[in-house]
């Protein structure tokens, strides 16, 4: 008992250290990108300025100080939650991000769910029945998913499902044009509609989600499919599985054993996909006018406003690291061996 607690303690401590190191790494890279690649003063001071304004801002930003001091200031700001100010919304970046995050989270989550709904069962079946027609078909779909650019697929879906066959509403954002968003509690239109008991709004928001979520699901699920398939295949061909079968254990028991072993890599891949999605919805948001973080970053870029973009980058990297950490912890609960492993 004590030994288990101790191994947990060491494991968590190690993971925490890695978390800190990763976050540090992320901050160093983003800091360098800004300070070393461009002059933030000219990026922040706008289009009409005087020499005094430039000098004042240089001093204000601490750009005349040595690099390590600048970095310290940068980190201090980050830890305080100060990501700067957007020059075109005139809001602090944190405020803007808070407002736009639910849109991206909602889209990313539904995309992940849709993708997993297809990829995991299909992958398991394809791995179990290798060489079958189903496996080959699924494989083909997965390969296509990797090769197709998500922004282009979104346009194709818009053309087919909206313009040509009028099956879905126009890609005008999160909710149909003639409906109003539900009162904001979580910021997720689907959940908030349910909470408000408004089925019409729920329906209107779901309809808008279909195309962008499908697009993202199709292009991000292939890796889930492949991991599930490969792991299933590997697991079913192990000695102990064959032994279990030979012993005549019920198919359900065998499946349970298999699932436990498949779970870990699949969960890891789920986490990586989710982490990727938060930063990866950018182009799909542009195509579908989805008012999330991605569109926010693109708008900022078009206004030569770099602080929002950096804010979104940091958030995405943070999210990715955290999701990865969460998956790791869950995995180690399922498979204690992970706790024991070294780097």
């Amino acid at each position, binding site marked *: 008992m004590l030994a288990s607690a101790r191994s947990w303690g060491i494991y968590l401590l190690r993971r925490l250290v890695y978390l800190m*190191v*990763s976050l540090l*790494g*992320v901050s160093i*890279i*983003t800091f360098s*990108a*800004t300070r070393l*690649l*461009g002059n*933030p003063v000219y*990026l922040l001071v706008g289009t009409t300025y005087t020499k005094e304004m430039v000098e004042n801002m240089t001093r204000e930003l601490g750009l005349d100080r040595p690099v390590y001091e600048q970095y310290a200031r940068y980190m201090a700001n980050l830890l305080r939650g100060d990501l700067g100010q957007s020059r075109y919304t005139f809001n602090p970046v944190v405020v803007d991000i808070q407002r736009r995050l639910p849109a991206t989270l909602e889209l990313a989550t539904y995309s992940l769910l849709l993708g997993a709904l297809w990829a995991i069962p299909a992958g398991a079946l394809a791995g179990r029945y290798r060489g079958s027609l189903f496996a080959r078909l699924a494989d083909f779909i997965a*390969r*296509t998913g*990797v*090769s*197709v*650019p998500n*922004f*282009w697929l979104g*346009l*194709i879906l*818009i*053309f087919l499902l*909206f*313009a*040509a066959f009028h099956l879905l509403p*126009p*890609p005008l954002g999160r909710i149909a044009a003639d409906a109003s968003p539900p009162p904001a509690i979580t910021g997720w239109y689907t959940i908030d509609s349910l909470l408000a008991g408004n089925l019409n709004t729920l329906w209107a928001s779901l309809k808008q989600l279909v195309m962008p979520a499908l697009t993202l699901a199709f292009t991000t699920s292939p890796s889930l499919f492949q991991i599930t398939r490969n792991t299933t295949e590997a697991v079913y061909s192990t000695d102990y599985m064959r032994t279990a079968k030979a012993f005549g254990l019920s198919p359900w028991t065998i499946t349970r054993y298999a699932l436990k072993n498949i779970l870990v890599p699949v969960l890891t891949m789920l986490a990586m996909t989710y*982490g*990727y999605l*938060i*930063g*990866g919805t*950018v*182009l799909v948001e*542009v*195509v579908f006018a989805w008012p999330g973080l*991605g569109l926010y*970053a*693109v708008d*900022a*870029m*078009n206004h*030569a406003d*770099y602080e929002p*973009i*950096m804010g*979104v*980058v940091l958030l*995405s*990297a943070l999210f*990715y*690291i955290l999701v*990865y950490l969460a998956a790791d912890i869950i995995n180690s609960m399922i498979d204690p061996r992970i706790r024991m492993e070294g*780097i």
Partner: protein
Amino acid sequence: MTPGQVSVQLAPVLHRPSAYQRLVTAHGALRVNLTLGLLLAVIALGLIAPLLPLPNPIKPDPFNSLKPPSAEHWFGTDPNGFDVFSRTIHAIRTDFALSISSVLLGVLIGVPLGAISGYLGGVIDNLINRVSEVIQGFPQLLFGMAVLAVAGNTLVNVVLITAFYNVPVYAKMVRSVVLPLRDVEFVQAARLSGNSPLSVVFRHIIPNALLPVVSQFPLSCAYAVQMIAGLSFIGLGVQIPIPEWGAMIQQGANYVVFSKWWPSVFPGLALVLSVSLLSSLSDQLKVLVTRRA
């Protein structure tokens, strides 16, 4: 030169199958020929594009803008009146040139980095490892946008940022090849005979890592094409009127809702074809990398 090579040479000479033959054995002639053939055809098409009797890809014709596919314009015309077919073909040059150079740059930096990391081990190895992990966890498109916003929207910067993402991939790959080789006989022999660590790395270890690098290369190019197209789609990268698939898709994007599908669909198809051919090739090449017992 693989580790097993030494023993083979002492035995009676066996016929060693060529790489191509090994591919065919593993995947079947149809698949291999189809992939290689189509890919070479695409690249060749791109190379000879200026010599083909195609309409000028950058000749605007506002009187004929947004015309649907016809005998005169096989893929129709885009909002500027450019011929979409001609631009799709010419874009092969742009996309392949940009992606190949980015990946090459990433390889040239990543391979030595990975080899040094794996060979030297210790703190340096740890550091490079951690940094690689962090880079790979970055939201690539977003960060690319940020860097281009800060450093300037030029083609050189696009190539550089794409190369940057390839460095950890190849560093990791080479490192994993190098680690088990550190203590293998011929390396020890080289070290004992007085070679400096650096030359050991470059002359004995890296050549062994080449095969996995080569098999990964087309896949990286596939990702690079997608990244470059993605950046062009939001306006970063090539300037008008240079033909490039992502930029072409972006120009046609606004018209899809009006059922004018051709300016965006055709370049997208070309993109999908190229990417799937490249990733297929990478997949097939993996077979060459598996160690023979």
